[in-house]
């Protein structure tokens, strides 16, 4: 078991085109560091000095991690993490 991480189209240049990759770690921060060790540069696209980049949304099992502790949010095997760019909503 590992943590499944779903990658948006724009970041698949880092993952050799893979839509979803696996990683490990006890927190989101550790998970992203683990990914960066195999997909060099991806961390920099997700995180800046103050945490997650403004237009990057990360969901842990469909819940926005910003409300679960941000980079310190605990993650564990079997979780699914989804990365998406922030877009404007639909029927507005």
């Amino acid at each position, binding site marked *: 078991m590992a943590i499944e991480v779903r990658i948006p189209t724009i970041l698949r240049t880092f993952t050799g085109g893979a839509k979803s990759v696996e990683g490990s770690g006890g927190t989101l921060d550790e998970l992203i560091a683990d990914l960066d060790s195999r997909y060099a540069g991806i961390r920099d696209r997700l995180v800046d000095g103050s945490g997650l980049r403004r237009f990057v949304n990360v969901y842990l099992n469909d819940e926005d991690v*910003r409300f679960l502790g941000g980079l310190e949010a605990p993650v564990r095997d079997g979780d699914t993490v989804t990365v998406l760019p922030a877009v404007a909503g639909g029927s507005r």
Partner: protein
Amino acid sequence: MRYDSLLDAVGGTPLVGLPRLSPGPAARLWAKLEDRNPTGSVKDRAALWMVTAAEKDGLLRPGSTILEPTSGNTGIALAMIARLRGYRLVCVMPENTSAERTQLLRMYGASVVHSPAAGGSNEAVRVAKRLAAENPGWVMLYQYGNEANSRAHYETTGPELLADLPEITHFVAGLGTSGTLMGTGRFLREHVPGVQIVAAEPRYGELVYGLRNMDEGFVPELYDDSVLTARYSVSAADALRRTRQLVHEEGIFAGISAGCVLHAGLALAEKAREAGERADIALLIADAGWKYLSTGAYAGTLAEAEARLEGELWA
């Protein structure tokens, strides 16, 4: 109920219990039926407040042209108000929104400018900002950053919910401009200690997120995450399944965004039940399903409906 005119009938929508979908008497779900507004959606509140504020500020005068990026409901609400108050309306709408919306807007007399499908509402906002720069006389109300949008909910939706459900523990609504969540959320937080304000947002197909750089995303100016306590991303499959469940179990024919909200609401109800806590969860049902029939969301199997929504702005 008697009103002097259609505009006086905005708001005051019913809050109905969902006894079959609620896990039990200690964890109850309630639906605020915003399709009971004059043009059939929650957006009548924001549109009326934004137009009235612009009139008060002297931005709108008889014969003025209103410009707005909208994928539907706000445009339809503005089109009705513009007709009654004597304004022209230009709507910028992504081309991948349903045919019903374009037809309704044109019937009310609005002009529709289509923006490219790829990029979704982000693109509509971009095109509208360009048109505003080219036409300095036009008035862009700009629902994503207009304080009157959230104020409409602070002054109406919030107080209505508190009056009908003083025991409210959670409020769940869709996250678009964030106006509904910000206004209702602020009001409820001021009056109900510990109330949870939860956003449910649609997770679209890949086309909608486009190939944009991660630095070029869009967060509405109204959005303030300190008002929220949680935010859920809901897939088309889950939203469709829940939308049908609303019809089958409670008889409510709602738009697909209601499926998103119900999905999050059921997760919260389950959490409360597991924790042994009482929950009275108000779900904001933004509109009815009529405008989405042509999307195929209500026909055939769920898998077929899901396939049809791929690439669409379905909520």
